[in-house]
């Protein structure tokens, strides 16, 4: 034996290990493949050996090779072998290899089930850990089913390391085996409050992931998460929770309202950019989901936009990118707030980083208005010229078209300009988006009637210069444009200046090299042109010219008849024959023009894509009726699949149309017309089916601004040198400017007239301010096609859900589970499969135990709690005993089987306990669930002493009151108990335990209620004190900082939760003057103790630029961070604000001095505290006490408390009648405890704090607060 080992290790010395392999590969750069193949051969040899060390080494090397991209699936079985090694070092290698190489279809995975189970229950926590990690990579549905129970047991492991991993892997298990979710959920939820932060964060992770997919089932957990959010300091966890809330708010708007405040607080206070970004994102999501109308909405949006601006202005490209990304989300709902930062976004267009430019482009979409469209597009066109990469250029192109065409060309005032932009875009070489340009050309030409003359002229030039466009034919996507050009020239040929020339251009031999579908259009439109020409020439009574044209057609068309493209060929030969016949007639001097043009007669009207749906079904036509009887035999087969898909939404069926009677239809039509009439952009009645062939009335009567034909109607586009020096579209920018000025002048005239008529003092705001949107009238009118949906088309929700989504299976109603066991208890089938005894000879006792356990959930749960308690204890004793036994056994034998048996004996007990928990859990949570409403409603939250009564009084919600409270009372003990019995740490004696239990019960009560009152941060703390109906007077912490005739500054100072040495000062600047305030600089004279945080690189006396300017009457908020060292004393800092006042004609420098007062209060942070923790704190004896008396305080007690809470950042711990305990914490962690008593007009405050100076100052400040009122 020993010899063998020695021999093995000698062998190993000659083997390559991983390091050698890596080195070897590096040394064989030229023939790497060959070297590796020899290595693989060696590895194969090594794997054949019995020595596990050699095998492990081989597998280790394989893992590396796998990473390099070599297939190692052939070694799967060897990997399993190494996994099952008893030595941890090898086992680890095996699991690593497995996690890298195995996937769901690896068949050897089946073999691993028992091995993994054994590792999971290993006494060595690292064995278990490595198994869990590995499992998370290759878990299959089978493994998930078989191991779910084991993993669930591990969730309550004593070691947090294991608990953490087990909790996380449960997520994978849920995905693969959705049935496990219901039984495991209560325990998972428990882990949210695990003492170990790692486990807690793992549970948050898992539940967040689950909840983001099926949010509605997790709504009841919102209060719990809210509490976590306000108490957690782990940014990673916070990010997760905040993300989760983002998913929950759309379902529960009230939640959104509750969230805004803590989120904005976080935004203010956090220094972590990732957290800030997440908060901003969620605030945006919340605001989107909330219906507008909340008063402080705009403030929050403003805050977000401001913060984002700071991100975008940052020199860090990453922040810039994210800022723009988030900005685009705001853009969707609050375009106005984003538009004010246009300057910044346009600036980003010039950024050196392409990804940033792309993001900025996204934003541009919302930046445009009628006023600046031309300017912006001009800028983009410059970028197009400069852009080096085709992808970016293509992106620019699509953006230009997107921007221009958005909402029915809403922002385009001059379509000639747009056409010339499109023509200019055709100059782009190698773009993929030729078809996009083409479709825009067609769309505009068809829908904007007034533009056709111009468009046709441009297109004719394009056709004429086609050779320039299509330099290198096929690869060039731009030739698609010719498709549009040919069609427009043909269709609107009556507008052509020189149709013969265009016809000639369309029949050039070079055309034959164009793609087939374009040739076809060429041929067809050549025929149209021909018809027009004939008509013109016959009018001239010039028969020779007409005959010449026919001859040209006959000469040129055969080229197309030979085309390989069928469509081209067919059209060409048809038309050729036609022309030949026409020529014959012409020679006989027959007038043919009329008849030829009749071929293409008729106006072309745009029809909405969905128009067909609007066509009413004629009366008596049942579209769903069979015309022939369906074959009878298939009937039964057809029926079945239908039964399976009962959920399928009924297709919006036609019969509903018939239900709508004629009158109703007429009424709707009327309403629609009315609506369209009010829409300034809607000119023409929609071409609904009834009217289609009537000439559209109205278009002719629209006053179309005469185009100043000073612009040459030649397209210089295709030639690189422009005769005028300016690109075409630029001239339009100028022209448009003139046009607008003219218009404005006219308008002013009119307005003056009006004013003369009226003479009343109502000054119009318009004329002094900048031109408003509505003032710009478009030069052309878009023929808008309404795209109505049929009335009965339902937006189907299922569209966006992927049927293969693994999360769909996890859409399980967990509330049911939590609410009442009676409603839907865990059915037997839902229990996680406990390991069944595959090995023969399972002990009977365990089987019996199993049965008993199965029975428990069905048992009526009317047993008195006492009985249960007893039983529980027995069980626990049993369990302990069995554990001990197990240990003994283990010591005796180390064989596998024994081990297995031990495990079995224990497990059922655990299981039964679990079931009980499940049973007990719901009752306690039932209170919570129905409390959700209660928690969400902003109704006052009762304090614990007067609970039941006040609940009934205060809660307006019908379901919430007394019942809940009453319900939860008797059940709670059970809850505490289960928790207690579970935590194996409690190894105290029985009697002691009982005493403790009682205490705990009490505490738990408090806990339960504080849960509500503390959850809401500042806001709900306030709530906690408001019990009576009396409303609180509005309060603000902003106090006046300084003021002069130009500007007013108010400020609020708050400690930074994240950083013990930082204080954030929010200053609101309000412009009181009529002038524009800019270049504001905020500077403070630093003291030894407090310093203003300045950006890196600036000197200690430099001021900070306020990141905004103030138009007259506007106020805005800026934040400044100060670092402080000692916080026990209040202090004052002198500062100055300098700014420039800009009037229409002058600008002056002004300054304003101020004194910033850092009170001790501002170093306090509202921190919730539980009464038990509070009691411990007081008992600890570390705190110094002090007290103060306030005389003549004439206000209700709850107002008093609310004031202390609000102004001094305290939270109420407990309140009994006219006595309350309060708590707060300084940013440096000093505890401040208050006991506030009132009798009559005297209020006495006893206080304790670990820092007497701080306490004294805080008390002074409190005293001052109340002396003021």
């Amino acid at each position, binding site marked *: 034996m020993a010899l063998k080992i020695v021999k093995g290790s000698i062998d190993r010395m000659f083997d390559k290990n991983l390091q050698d392999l890596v080195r070897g590969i590096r040394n064989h750069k030229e023939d790497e493949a060959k070297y590796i193949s020899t290595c693989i051969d060696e590895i194969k040899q090594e794997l054949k050996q019995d020595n596990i060390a050699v095998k492990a080494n081989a597998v280790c090397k394989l893992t590396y090779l796998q990473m390099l991209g070599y297939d190692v699936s052939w070694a799967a079985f060897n990997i399993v072998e190494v996994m099952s090694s008893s030595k941890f070092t090898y086992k680890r290698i095996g699991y690593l290899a497995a996690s890298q190489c195995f996937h769901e279809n690896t068949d050897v995975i089946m073999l691993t089930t028992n091995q993994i189970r054994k590792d999971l229950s290993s006494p060595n926590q690292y064995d278990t850990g490595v198994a869990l990690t590995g499992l998370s990579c290759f878990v299959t549905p089978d493994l998930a089913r078989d191991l779910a129970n084991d993993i669930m047991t591990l969730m309550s492991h004593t070691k947090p390391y294991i608990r*953490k991993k087990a909790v996380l892997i449960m997520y994978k298990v849920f995905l693969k085996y959705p049935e496990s979710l219901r039984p495991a959920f209560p325990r998972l939820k428990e882990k949210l409050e695990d003492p170990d932060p790692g486990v807690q964060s793992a549970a948050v992770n898992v539940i967040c992931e689950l909840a983001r997919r099926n949010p509605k089932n997790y709504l009841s957990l919102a209060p719990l998460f809210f509490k976590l959010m306000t108490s957690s300091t782990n940014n990673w966890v916070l990010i997760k929770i905040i993300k989760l809330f983002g998913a929950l708010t759309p379902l529960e708007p009230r939640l959104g309202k509750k969230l805004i405040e803590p989120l904005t607080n976080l935004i203010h206070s956090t220094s972590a950019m990732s957290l800030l970004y997440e908060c901003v994102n969620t605030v945006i999501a919340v605001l989107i989901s909330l219906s507008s109308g909340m008063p402080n909405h705009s403030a929050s949006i403003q805050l977000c936009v401001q913060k984002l601006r700071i991100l975008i202005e940052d020199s860090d490209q990453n922040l810039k990118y994210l800022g723009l990304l988030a900005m685009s989300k705001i853009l969707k709902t609050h375009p106005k707030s984003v538009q004010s930062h246009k300057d910044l976004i346009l600036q980003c267009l010039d950024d050196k980083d392409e990804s940033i430019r792309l993001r900025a482009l996204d934003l541009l979409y919302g930046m445009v208005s009628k006023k600046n469209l031309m300017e912006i597009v001009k800028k983009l066109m410059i970028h197009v010229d400069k852009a080096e990469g085709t992808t970016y250029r293509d992106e620019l192109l699509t953006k230009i078209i997107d921007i221009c065409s958005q909402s029915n060309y809403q922002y385009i005032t001059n379509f000639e300009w747009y056409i010339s932009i499109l023509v200019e875009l055709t100059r782009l070489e190698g773009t993929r988006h030729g078809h996009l340009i083409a479709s825009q050309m067609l769309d505009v030409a068809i829908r904007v009637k007034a533009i056709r003359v111009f468009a046709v002229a441009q297109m004719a030039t394009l056709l004429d210069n086609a050779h320039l466009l299509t330099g290198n034919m096929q690869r060039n996507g731009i030739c698609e444009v010719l498709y549009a050009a040919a069609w427009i020239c043909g269709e609107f040929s009556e507008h052509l200046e020189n149709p013969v020339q265009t016809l000639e251009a369309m029949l050039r031999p070079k055309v034959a090299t164009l793609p087939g579908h374009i040739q076809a259009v060429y041929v067809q439109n050549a025929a149209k042109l021909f018809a027009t020409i004939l008509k013109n020439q016959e009018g001239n009574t010039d028969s020779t010219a007409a005959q010449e044209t026919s001859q040209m057609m006959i000469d040129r068309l055969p080229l197309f008849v030979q085309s390989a493209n069928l469509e081209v060929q067919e059209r060409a030969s048809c038309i050729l024959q036609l022309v030949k016949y026409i020529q014959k007639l012409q020679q006989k001097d027959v007038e043919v023009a009329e008849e030829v043009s009749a071929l293409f007669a008729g106006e072309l009207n*745009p029809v909405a894509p969905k128009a067909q749906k609007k066509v009413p079904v004629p009366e008596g036509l049942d579209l769903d009726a069979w015309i022939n009887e369906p074959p009878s035999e298939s009937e039964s087969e057809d029926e079945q699949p239908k039964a399976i898909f009962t959920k399928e939404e009924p297709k919006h069926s036609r019969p509903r149309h018939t239900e709508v009677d004629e009158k109703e239809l007429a009424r709707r039509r009327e309403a629609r017309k009315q609506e369209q009439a009010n829409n300034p952009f809607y000119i023409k009645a929609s071409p609904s089916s009834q009217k*289609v062939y009537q000439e559209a009335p109205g278009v002719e009567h629209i006053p179309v601004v005469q185009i100043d034909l000073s612009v040459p109607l030649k397209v210089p586009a295709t030639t690189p040198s422009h005769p005028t020096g300016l690109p075409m579209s630029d001239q339009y920018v100028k022209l448009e400017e003139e046009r607008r000025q003219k218009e404005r002048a006219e308008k002013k005239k009119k307005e003056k007239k009006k004013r003369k008529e009226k003479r009343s003092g109502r000054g119009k705001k318009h004329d002094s301010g900048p031109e408003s949107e509505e003032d710009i009238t478009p030069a052309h009118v878009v023929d808008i096609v309404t795209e109505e949906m049929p009335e009965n088309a339902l937006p189907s929700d299922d569209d966006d859900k992927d049927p293969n989504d693994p999360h769909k299976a996890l859409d399980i109603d967990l509330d049911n589970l939590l609410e009442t066991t009676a409603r839907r208890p865990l059915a037997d089938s839902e229990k996680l499969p406990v390991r069944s005894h595959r090995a023969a000879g399972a002990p009977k006792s365990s089987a019996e135990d199993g049965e008993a356990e199965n029975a428990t959930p069905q048992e009526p749960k009317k047993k008195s709690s006492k009985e249960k308690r007893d039983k529980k204890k027995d069980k626990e004793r049993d369990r302990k005993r069995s554990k001990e036994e197990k240990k003994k056994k283990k010591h005796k034998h180390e064989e596998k089987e024994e081990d297995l048996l031990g495990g079995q004996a224990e497990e059922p007990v655990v299981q039964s306990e679990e079931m009980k928990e499940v049973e007990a859990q719901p009752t306690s949570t039932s209170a919570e669930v129905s409390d959700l409403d209660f928690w969400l409603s902003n109704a006052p939250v009762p304090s614990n002493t007067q609970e039941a009564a006040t609940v009934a009084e205060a809660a307006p919600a019908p379901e919430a009151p007394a019942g809940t409270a009453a319900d939860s009372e008797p059940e709670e003990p059970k809850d505490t108990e289960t928790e207690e019995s579970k935590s194996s740490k409690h190894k105290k004696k029985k009697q002691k335990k009982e005493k403790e239990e009682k205490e705990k019960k009490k505490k738990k009560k408090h806990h339960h209620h504080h849960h509500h009152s503390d959850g809401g941060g500042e806001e709900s703390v306030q709530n906690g004190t408001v019990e009576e109906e009396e409303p609180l007077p509005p309060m603000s912490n902003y106090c006046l900082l300084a003021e002069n005739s130009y500007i007013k500054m108010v400020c609020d100072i708050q400690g930074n939760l994240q950083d013990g040495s930082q204080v954030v000062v929010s200053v609101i600047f309000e412009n009181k003057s009529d002038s524009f305030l800019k270049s504001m600089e905020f500077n403070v004279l630093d003291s030894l103790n407090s310093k203003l945080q300045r950006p890196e690189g600036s000197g200690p006396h430099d001021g900070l630029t306020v990141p905004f300017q103030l138009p007259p009457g506007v106020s805005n908020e800026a934040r400044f961070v100060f670092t402080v060292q000692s916080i026990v004393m209040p202090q004052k800092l002198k500062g100055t604000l300098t700014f420039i006042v800009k009037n229409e004609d002058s600008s002056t420098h002004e300054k304003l001095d101020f004194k910033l007062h850092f009170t001790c209060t501002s170093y306090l942070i509202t921190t919730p505290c539980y009464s038990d923790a509070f009691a411990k704190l007081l008992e600890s004896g570390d705190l110094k006490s002090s007290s103060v008396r306030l005389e003549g305080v004439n206000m209700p007690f709850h107002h008093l408390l609310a004031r202390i809470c609000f102004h001094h950042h305290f939270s109420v711990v407990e309140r009994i009648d006219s006595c309350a305990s309060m708590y707060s914490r300084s940013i440096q962690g000093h505890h401040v405890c208050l006991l506030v008593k009132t009798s009559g007009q005297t209020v006495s405050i006893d206080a304790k704090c670990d820092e007497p100076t701080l306490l004294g100052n805080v008390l002074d400040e409190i005293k001052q607060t109340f002396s003021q009122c």
Partner: protein
Amino acid sequence: MWCARLIGDLVFCIELTGRHCCSLPRPLSDPMVKPATDRIMIKFVLMVNRQGQTRLSRYYHSVELSRRAALEADVVRYCLSRKKDQCSFVEYKDFKLVYRQYAALYIVVGITDSENELSIYELVHNFVEVLDKYFSRVSELDIMFNLDRVHIILDEMIQNGHIVETNKSRILAPLTTIDKMVDS
């Protein structure tokens, strides 16, 4: 079999005699609307050097071996071609890449669209800091020769594509214990 729906189309034809063109489908007017991403998670973690050689790869969703090579090559190409003054987030197909460069080594993380880019960016740094702490000034060679240990560290930090642990000492605790076990 004559389906009645066909008649519906006939009705349409009858109604619309005369020539018509259907208005062209408008370009998707809202560029901001993106399809809902299926899952929020880290898709993979890659370590590559400047030559494009993979030094570590970890996938949190199954990707076929053959597609991995192509993906890695693509990813490397994207990231290596970027300059230092460009931002560290790249949109790639339907997900995003977050990368960071440390000397000649690039760490690239593939994430879904809704993951917080910045937090991943910080995670990468955290990861490198942990490596630095463990190997005391980590180099590319350390990672090559101690691939299994790097994997352990990574597994402590990311599991299932979710961030598990960010505390340096807690991440390293199991590894140091393991090292002790191996030594003894």
